[in-house]
């Protein structure tokens, strides 16, 4: 039996510590990890909980992130509750095995502390690694602060392990801005947390010797397409399960999560759509601008995969001008997030104006003032009835203005 861990009703935790406590309370059986900044403390703390008797689990030290996720695949296929953490280059090295995990329908939880991808080398946060996972077949949930990193990590187990889902889940938080920022966190007691998450009931577990199974079979063109279609459907069908888990979580904590979060959206005309901590910073700007009579609102994407195409559309269809903020170098295209939101809005009757901001790369500060400036550009678009700026702009960048493409609508 595990030792009792003393928790206060109110703690001051950073995002990493919060996530590691969620792993402890979920009684994760196996963590196979190759720690990397800024997510190191999550698995480091889990290792300490094991060593100090706070959890009956196994910490497996491996030689790379590729091996870390491979170890997780093995442990999860064996039937255990499994989690690990990574960031940036580690995420990139894990990428191959991420597709294996989702294709084998293994409910592993990966806490991703978002960090820029080299080169140039940079330990600070942007969403390059998060975007790298967007076609990997994992559910991707995004926390905007440390409290949410804790809450959503608990939810992730319950979502992924649901027998009608059976998919791996990433819980993202922003490197340093969330992972290394201590703030008030209100944890559940160990008993309540485990009551919420529940015991894992494995399916097709390899340690069930009465029913031997083969994992990782080969298919060629005769079967591959059907299996990927079924996997896509599982992801799309996870949406109501995610909603149920969020509703259940609200019963335990009073904290309500939605796959798309809207703030001041009832009558919003100018909107920022974003991921991560930027959602909250933009809310401060929106509230301040509302005092000046500008109808500003913010939309945060809580569940990035499966992408909430319909909810995004419902949330934004009555806006006049929408700024979609991508915190990842777009590599010769419009921002990927912009493209997804734009595609949803294109199918609405009103088709709000949509522009793309590339910002905050490599941890560049995103300030309230910058959010206000973006809102005011949307205001100018809304007043003019057409896009007055370049459709894609870099924001917060030193040097001459960098932007691309102008509207053909007027």
């Amino acid at each position, binding site marked *: 039996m595990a030792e009792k861990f003393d928790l206060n009703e109110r703690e001051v935790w950073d995002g990493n510590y919060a996530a590691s406590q969620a792993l402890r309370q979920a009684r994760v059986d196996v963590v196979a990890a190759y720690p990397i900044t800024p997510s190191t403390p999550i698995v480091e703390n889990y290792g300490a909980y094991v060593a100090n008797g706070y959890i009956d689990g196994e910490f497996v030290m491996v030689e790379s992130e590729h091996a870390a996720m491979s170890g997780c695949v093995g442990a999860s296929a064996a039937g255990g509750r499994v989690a690990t953490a990574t960031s940036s280059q580690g995420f990139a090295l894990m990428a191959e095995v991420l597709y294996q995990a989702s294709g084998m329908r293994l409910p592993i939880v990966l806490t991703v502390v978002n960090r820029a991808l080299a080169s140039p080398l940079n330990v600070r946060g942007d969403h390059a690694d998060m975007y790298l996972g967007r076609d990997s077949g994992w559910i991707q949930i995004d926390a905007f602060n440390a409290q949410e990193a804790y809450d959503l990590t608990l939810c992730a187990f319950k979502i992924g392990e649901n027998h009608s889902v059976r998919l791996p889940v990433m819980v993202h938080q922003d490197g340093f801005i969330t992972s290394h920022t201590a703030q008030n966190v209100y944890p559940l007691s160990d008993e309540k947390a485990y009551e919420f998450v529940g015991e894992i009931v494995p399916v097709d577990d390899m340690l069930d010797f009465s029913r031997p*199974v083969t994992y990782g079979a080969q*298919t060629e063109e005769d079967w591959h397409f059907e299996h990927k279609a079924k996997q896509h459907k599982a992801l799309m069908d996870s949406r109501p399960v995610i909603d149920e888990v969020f509703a259940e979580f609200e019963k335990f904590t009073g904290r309500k999560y939605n796959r798309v979060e809207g703030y001041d959206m009832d009558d919003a005309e100018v909107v920022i759509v974003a991921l991560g901590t930027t959602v909250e910073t933009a809310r401060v700007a929106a509230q301040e601008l509302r005092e000046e009579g500008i109808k500003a609102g913010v939309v945060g994407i809580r569940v990035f995969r499966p992408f909430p195409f319909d909810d995004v559309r419902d949330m934004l269809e009555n806006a006049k001008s929408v700024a979609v903020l991508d915190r990842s170098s777009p590599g010769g295209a419009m921002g990927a997030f912009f493209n997804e939101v734009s595609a949803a809005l294109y199918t609405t009757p009103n088709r709000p104006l949509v522009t793309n901001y590339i910002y905050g790369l490599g941890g560049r500060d995103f300030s309230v003032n910058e959010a206000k400036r973006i809102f005011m550009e949307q205001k100018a678009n809304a007043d003019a009835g057409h896009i007055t700026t370049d459709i894609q702009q870099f924001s917060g960048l030193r040097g001459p203005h960098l932007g691309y493409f102008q509207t053909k609508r007027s």
Partner: protein
Amino acid sequence: MQDLKLKAADKRGIHQLGGDELVGWDEVTQGIILTSFEGDASNVAHLKAEERNYSDFNSYTATVASWRVQKPVFNIDVCIDCQNCWVWCPDTSIISRDKQMLGIDYDHCKGCEVCVEVCPTNPKSLLMFNEQEDLETALSQWPEKKKKEK
């Protein structure tokens, strides 16, 4: 344990690998996870292959006999039960019980000739013949022991 809708679950027994009717995306297994046996398989390690209740996903229930152009024929009179062929066969198609060689599993043998290569007896206890050759004719054509050349 859950009720899996298995592909071609009604077709028991040997079937052609890759030759069956293909089901749609809605009927394939979750995660391409394939079961080897029907029912409780706890005791399966203690059963002979032919006594096991293999599932349709198990390659034991599929035949590759048609892939073969020539087949190995086994001559029990020459065999010394050294088990070399059993060790080397890449398709577990040598049937052996209690270290005694019994014959060839022609449903799974692809005719690769490895067993013939590794057979140490003189003459060999396994030789390749045309697929349509019957056993009696094949055995009647078995070569004599080769004399050592001085």
